[in-house]
């Protein structure tokens, strides 16, 4: 199904809208989300809780509960293939072999009753026709690649015997074990300490760069994402409000939401000074406001914002969905 002569994107989501039907009506979780993840590219997906970060990637790997959601428009392509129409057998081959996911809480992602080694070998042999002994060697190698001391001892251990940081390394090893083309890292460091977090980020980045794996890195922490990602997507209430190369987005954020998000961080202000906060709350996705979803909280909103903003591409590759930026494409500094 691949395009002739051109390698397809690792992940390409076009104008995806998705809703969850409930008794109170449809919750519009995603509205026109467009994300491209190129080969060997590390892409960050940032937003506050409930903005649709995880739903986007779970829709792409079809991990959402069948029949509980409805894709109302748009297309998803994983390495050129459409996961929404795949057979279950195909899907199982794709997950793990082509795409694998690192979840936030490693204790929930590992089977507590099976030794680490057996779980790793199981994943490897599920996708590759090699002997148990060969798979064990592969597993041990990948564990030592993750800077785990004494891999043979760790492989004999049960998940509960390991610390949170160790468990997360095991999970990353498992995700990388079949050399997938795309890794989805869903808040992999949120439950960890900063020193361990720094190590984990470096492991993911280093391994991905060496093997040419694409990574979608989901986080609510814009500082963490900025450390390892080439490009960023900022999400708000189920829409992508801004995207672009990491440095460009951080140095000259264009969307009022991105700016507010950066100004909320204590890092950039004087100690004890008033931190900027975003007034109001996230819209109810059962009944979102007309036009721009950020309008009720936006300080720059005017008449035009009652209509849905179109994405505008700016020089430097930044894409922003805001009426205030679509007319004047002048450079607006961060301090403004």
């Amino acid at each position: 199904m691949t395009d002739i002569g051109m390698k397809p994107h690792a992940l390409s989501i076009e104008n995806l809208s998705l809703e969850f039907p409930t008794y109170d009506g449809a919750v519009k979780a995603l509205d026109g989300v467009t994300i491209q993840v190129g080969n060997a590219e590390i892409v960050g997906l940032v937003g506050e809780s409930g903005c649709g970060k995880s739903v986007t990637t779970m829709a792409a790997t079809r991990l959402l509960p069948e029949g509980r959601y409805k894709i109302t428009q748009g297309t998803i392509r994983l390495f050129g293939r459409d996961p929404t129409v795949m057979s279950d057998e195909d899907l199982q081959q794709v997950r793990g072999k082509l795409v694998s996911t690192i979840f936030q809480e490693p204790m929930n992602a590992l089977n507590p009753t099976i030794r680490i080694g057996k779980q790793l070998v199981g994943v490897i042999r599920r996708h590759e026709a090699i002997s148990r002994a060969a798979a064990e060697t592969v597993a041990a190698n990948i564990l030592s690649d993750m800077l785990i001391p004494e891999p043979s001892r760790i492989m004999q251990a049960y998940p509960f015997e390991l610390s949170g940081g160790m468990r997360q390394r095991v999970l990353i090893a498992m995700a990388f074990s079949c050399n997938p083309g795309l890794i989805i890292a869903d808040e992999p460091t949120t439950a960890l300490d900063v020193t361990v977090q720094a190590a984990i980020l470096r492991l993911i980045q280093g391994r991905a760069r060496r093997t040419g794996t694409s990574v979608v890195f989901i986080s609510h922490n814009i500082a963490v994402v900025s450390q390892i990602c080439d490009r960023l997507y900022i999400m708000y209430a189920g829409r992508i409000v801004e995207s672009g190369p990491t440095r460009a987005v951080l140095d000259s954020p264009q969307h009022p939401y991105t700016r507010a998000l950066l100004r909320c961080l204590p890092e950039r202000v004087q100690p004890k000074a008033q931190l900027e906060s975003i007034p109001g709350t996230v819209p109810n996705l059962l009944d979102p406001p007309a036009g721009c979803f950020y309008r009720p909280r936006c300080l720059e909103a005017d008449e035009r914002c009652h209509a849905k903003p179109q994405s505008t591409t700016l020089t430097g590759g930044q894409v922003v969905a805001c009426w205030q930026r679509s007319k004047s494409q002048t450079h607006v500094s961060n301090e403004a």
Partner: protein
Amino acid sequence: MDATPLLSVENLAVRFPGARNWFGRVTSEVHAVNNVDLVVLPGESLGIVGESGCGKSTLVQAVIGLVAPTSGRVVVEGHDFAATSGRQKTQIRQKMQIVFQDPQSSLDPRLPVWRLITEPLHIRGGMSAAALRTRARELAVSVGLRSEHLDRLAHEFSGGQRQRIAIARALSTDPELLILDEPTSALDVSVQAQIINLLLKLQRELGLSYLFISHDVSLVRHFCDRVAVMYLGQIVETGPSSAVFDHPAHPYTQTLLASVPSLQNSLQEIDASLTGELPNNRRLPTGCYYRERCLVSSAGCEKLQDLATVASIGHDVKTPNEAGISDHMVRCHVGVTAALRLEHLA
């Protein structure tokens, strides 16, 4: 030179029974807090930072009386907390209140907001329902809730609003010290900013002291006057936030600060050995607790160091007895001289 402390913790240790033998006798102990000295002055904020498992939460739980200290004293306004009883103990308790990390689990789901907020007053007794309700309204308004919220239940609120309810509840007994145990780590950054602003405003208006626990270094730097860095149940470095964060003297503090993700710089190359984990606290290491992970460990590290005042250029090293409360002190005989810090800055 320093004011009388509101709270002082003297040589506090907390150990929990680890394993028991066949007869039920304790054979090993978990050393959660190891001989901590702390002082909180009226109106100031003291931050406690450290990795998970370093004993931050156990320390404050011992301070507020939720766990019994194995040894050491907690002194509140000159009264030894453990030695008091009856009415005096109740009075001391009311001077200290705590706000927990997760408002979802620290608020009773079946009580309306006005009852939640006035729960401590209800326990103290002596107030009519009408008076409690009036007080609840005052408190709710002071933390930015509206009076129509008073009859709702906790689940009807967002995380940030629930944390406001928890703060209002903590304020109900007119405390002088609020213990904040990771009050914003369950919240989004925009909501975190609102809560931090609220806490700073309350401090200005009511002259509150804060004991602020967090693993978020940039937040502690923003929020706290002084900071104590904990490692394996021990304070390894303490001093004014600016001094500790701008010129860290302990190798552990330096590693911790280098690991903090920042918007300004990209991922820093840190030696892989530094990213290890806390040693087992069932059997404490001999000598300096940080020795195994430390890059500058040398002769002298096999001996457990005391906190000593960091030498600034032209000053001598002072021992804790001569040092003031707000001096920059470190538990490392290498870091106490200026050499390590100069190297760090280079």
